[in-house]
């Protein structure tokens, strides 16, 4: 590792053009002792917290699971090889992400590259994955551009849907509740002024309006806001039974606390990223019960339960109940695709990912136009689990609890 990197630095200085030429030589099968996986992930900077919850632990878990099982079978080569990892810190900067992928692809010549965390970073990395022909399994990017992107970059796979998926599912679920008379017609929305919040609010605003809801509050707040008292104070006086926040984790936690303090307890309390995090019940205390949010899991799935157990055992923390399982599932797909191809043939692996059906912890999965369409879109904390209420392909396994229980005041 150290030697390799020293060489790399020399080349950066423009000294080692020769070495680069040599590095392009193919790796022969008989030399192969492992399948080399590379990834650059945000270990520092703004994205580190998100990556540390959803992405890194799952990469570690998958590598551990595979290697414990003896590795991945490459039938064409007649070997079963363990995974070997090269990891970099992209320092939460798009420029670093791009360069790290260039490095993994051309310098380290890894066999496969796992993507970084976040929508922006995955979009930034798209052309580079594409240029070097590596499949990109973007499991933590939410974008309505996914169909166009998948068409533009043939090796890219978009696993987490777009803003419309989540917004429409939420509206649909709420329409049922309204029509049943459980909630009134008024909805208040606060969105973080960042990629995720805007994508969702852009989809949700017209969807709510078309469904006949009255939007009594629909505003954005800047990334980094720490005090939500003004928003909660204003919203609590507007008579909305439904409060929706397309928020980021710190905001999600602060909004919950503030709503409890202000005793603003709407019948539907829906928050964005972070509700599905394992620490949410710890922060909200008994009040986590009945809170809705993005994502969800199938509480009755044994595969998911087993996955949770393995994740806790290895990482010391539970996975989140939205993108973690998807991330892990995307890795299972990758593994199965490799085994079906029987060799590290990235073109063939990509083709298999596009067309094949895979057996994962979230069930049988088949991509549609390089996109995972089988997603939990709305979840709710019920009995200590963040259970899926709405799914893009199948009916929810649980019914929503509306109205949610009243807040228990803190002591």
């Amino acid at each position, binding site marked *: *590792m*150290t030697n390799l*990197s*020293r060489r*790399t*630095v020399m*080349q*950066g*200085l*423009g000294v*080692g*053009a020769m070495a*680069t*030429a040599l*590095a*392009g030589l193919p790796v022969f099968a008989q030399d192969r002792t492992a399948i080399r996986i590379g990834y650059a*992930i945000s*270990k*520092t*900077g*703004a994205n580190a917290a998100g990556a540390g919850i959803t992405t890194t632990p799952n990469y570690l878990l998958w590598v551990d699971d595979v290697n414990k099982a003896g590795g991945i079978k490459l039938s064409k080569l007649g070997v079963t090889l363990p995974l070997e990892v090269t*990891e*970099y*810190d*992209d*320092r*939460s*900067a*798009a*420029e*670093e992400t*791009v*360069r*790290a992928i*260039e*490095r993994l*692809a*051309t*310098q380290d010549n890894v066999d496969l590259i796992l993507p970084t965390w976040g*929508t*922006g970073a995955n*979009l*930034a990395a*798209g*052309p580079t994955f594409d*240029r*070097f022909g590596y499949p990109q399994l973007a499991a933590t990017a939410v974008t309505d*551009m996914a169909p166009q992107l998948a068409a*533009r970059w043939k090796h890219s796979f978009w696993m987490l849907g777009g803003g419309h998926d989540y917004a429409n599912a939420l509206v649909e679920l709420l329409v049922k509740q309204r029509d049943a008379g459980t909630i009134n017609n008024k909805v208040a929305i606060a969105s973080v*002024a*960042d*990629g995720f919040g*805007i*994508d969702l609010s*852009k989809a949700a605003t017209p969807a709510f309006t078309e469904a006949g809801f009255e939007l009594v509050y629909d505003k*954005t707040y*800047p*990334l980094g806001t720490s005090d939500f008292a003004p928003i909660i104070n204003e919203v609590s006086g507007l008579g909305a039974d439904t409060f929706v926040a397309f928020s980021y984790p710190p905001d999600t936690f602060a909004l919950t606390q503030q709503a409890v303090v202000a005793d603003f307890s709407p019948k539907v309390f829906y928050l964005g990223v972070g509700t599905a995090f394992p620490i949410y019940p710890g922060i909200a205390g008994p009040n986590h019960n009945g809170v809705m949010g993005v994502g969800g899991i199938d509480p009755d799935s044994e595969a998911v339960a087993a996955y949770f157990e393995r994740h806790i055992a290895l990482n010391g923390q539970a996975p989140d109940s939205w993108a973690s399982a998807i991330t892990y599932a995307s890795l299972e797909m990758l593994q199965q695709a490799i085994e079906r191809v029987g060799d590290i043939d990235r073109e063939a692996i990509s083709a298999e990912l596009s067309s094949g059906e895979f057996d994962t912890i979230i069930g049988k999965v088949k991509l549609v136009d390089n996109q995972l369409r089988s997603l939990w879109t709305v979840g709710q904390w019920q009995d200590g689990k963040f259970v899926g209420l709405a799914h893009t392909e199948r009916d929810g396994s649980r019914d929503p609890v509306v109205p949610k229980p009243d807040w228990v005041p803190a002591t």
Partner: protein
Amino acid sequence: MKLAAALIALLALAFVPSLVGPYPLGLMIGILGYGILATAWALFSGPTRYISLATVAFFGLGAYTVAVLSETLPYPLVLLAAAAIGLVVALLVGLATLRLAGIYFVIFTFGLTELVRQLVTYYEVNVTRTLGRYVFLPFGPEHIYWQLLALLAATLAIAFWVRQSKIGLALRVIGDDPVVASHLGIRITRAKLTLFSISAVIMTLAGAIQAPRWTYIEPSIVFNPTTSFLVVIMALLGGPNRLFGPLLGAIPLFLLFEWLSANFPNHYSIILGLLFIAIVFVLPNGVLAAVDSVRARLTRKEASA
């Protein structure tokens, strides 16, 4: 003679993309990007000693200009528009900061960058209803590399010219004592605004040229305040009052970051931090000053030998 050497070096560097692989080229792009920013930063901040943290404001504006206009205007005009926007903002910033000095200037420029970021965000969110924008320009890394190389050459040429020129002297006088400067007949406002604007336009162009490399532009990517800090550190490390100082600060630091993040992805922060502290203690006057003093010691030894 020196000019000829510089041109040969430039020509040689222009062939780098055909000689090296994508990753070394990516490194070169990164080095050029930071080298340009640090040199441009030192153009104004070196002689005046006004530490500006507004670098990324201009950088980001450049990138956004490309994101907004690349579909509607031909590319050269997009760059021109970026330069014009950088110039206008630089003049506004320059006029607003005329009375500020020291730490007040530093934090003002930081606040200003954040304000620009907030306003861009607000505009995008509430007017265009999107946050991220996509830049699909048909540029490979080598195109970006060549453009950056040209911009770096131009920046160094400007820096060279400024050092020889009256305006360079004016800025040094202002940096030492603005009161004396005005009493000697120096038009302080004009001198400061001129160089601040030149420096800002270069930064804007650096952002504009690199935008296509990321495909996706959003405020948190292009207005990342860390960039401003890194540029200051690089320039200070190399020596902001020397022509090649900022560049020679950028190169080792950039490579150091790269090496650490690759070899110690989990302890990157700690090692980097310790190295920074060591640098302050070991190289108190910057890399070039250290090189000079070593060279001086060697010549003295030779002379005595």
